[in-house]
């Protein structure tokens, strides 16, 4: 799904919710996943003027989960460690998006190259 404007946020979150419900994820994990997704999609809009968000159902052994990939061609992040620090923001927001999203999901991966873009991948296991 391509995310280009603020109006794309709500439909995207609804899609994530549909998938989460389909895998039988409980309401708490659903909410955590959707909130993390909301943070990452907003970052993509705000700092990279949009990008692509991908929703997949994944499984490992008996465990099912949802993997979300957020890929943008924005300015990239020079210091990932700093960006992941609680309260760090290059703007005027709370600086909790990246570190918060990381805490809300089971697996979190971020790749970024200055001038090339950023890709964040998260997985939330159904019982994770």
């Amino acid at each position, binding site marked *: 799904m391509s995310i280009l404007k603020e109006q794309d946020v709500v439909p995207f979150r609804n899609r994530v919710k549909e998938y989460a419900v389909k895998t039988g994820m409980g309401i708490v994990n659903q909410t955590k996943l959707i*909130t993390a997704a909301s943070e990452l999609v*907003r970052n993509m809009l705000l700092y990279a003027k949009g990008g692509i968000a991908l929703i997949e159902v994944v499984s490992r052994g008996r465990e099912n989960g949802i993997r979300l990939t957020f890929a943008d061609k924005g300015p990239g992040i020079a210091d990932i460690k700093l960006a992941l620090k609680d309260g760090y923001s290059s703007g005027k927001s*709370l600086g909790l998006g990246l570190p918060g999203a990381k805490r809300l999901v089971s697996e979190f991966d971020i790749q970024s190259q200055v001038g090339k873009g950023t890709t964040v991948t998260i997985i939330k296991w159904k019982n994770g």
Partner: protein
Amino acid sequence: MKNESIKVFQRKKKNILELWMTNQLADQGLREDLMSNEDLRAQSEELVSAFIDTLDDVTINDGRATAFEKVLDILSGISISRAKQGYSPRETGIFVLSLKDALQQVLRDEIKDVAVLYDQSQKISKIIDSFSIETFETFIKGREEVILRQTDEISEISTPVIRVWDNIVALPIIGTLDSARTQVVMESLLQEIVETGSNIAILDISGVPTVDSLVAQHLIKTVSATRLMGAECIISGIRPEIAQTVVHLGIDLTNIITKSTLASALKAAFAMQQLEVVKRQRQNNMVVNN
């Protein structure tokens, strides 16, 4: 040498209009409920005249020529007004495309040389196609305007401030609290606080599906603004899954009075006002009169 079709069109202007009208009226989807035939005729005539007057040896090869500005203006006007009146894209499309049929019909009757007919017909077809693309673009724009207006209206009706008690106002928020929405919420809340002289505001977020850091920041801002007005703000309707998520996100709401339900927020508000709600004792009917 003037293009053959231009001469034909200038001569046959009346015929074209008649044919076009017949084509339009023949369409089963025609909306007489939305527009009278007279209005349709007036619109069509204006467009045919403007089109034929603009046609010359240059413009006939380029539907996007600036000379067609007047034609496109008329078309846009028609298209936008149709979008707002609730016409379907099909109905609006037929309006333009049936003009093509009319023009080609006239050409077929008037031009005997097949090669010339083919060439002219091709040119006309291209121009009308480019007009119809233009029409669709403006049609969509018209629809988007409708949507934007509705969005504005919704954001207004969805922020009702309720006077629940003397000096206590409540505002249930339903849906997503984006930046624009926050602005509306904050304005109507502060306004109501001033008007009623209230000193407690309850912000109920049971209808907010997702509380991410942006929404949280908006909530914190609203609480601070309320406090600046000298009133206290309670946030209620925090569902258990929202509470857990907010904690994991790392959002600090310890400086804000939060309650899980509107009822408990109201109770807290009463306590702050030194009010007490008590069940009335069953009254004794017997009045002892000494």
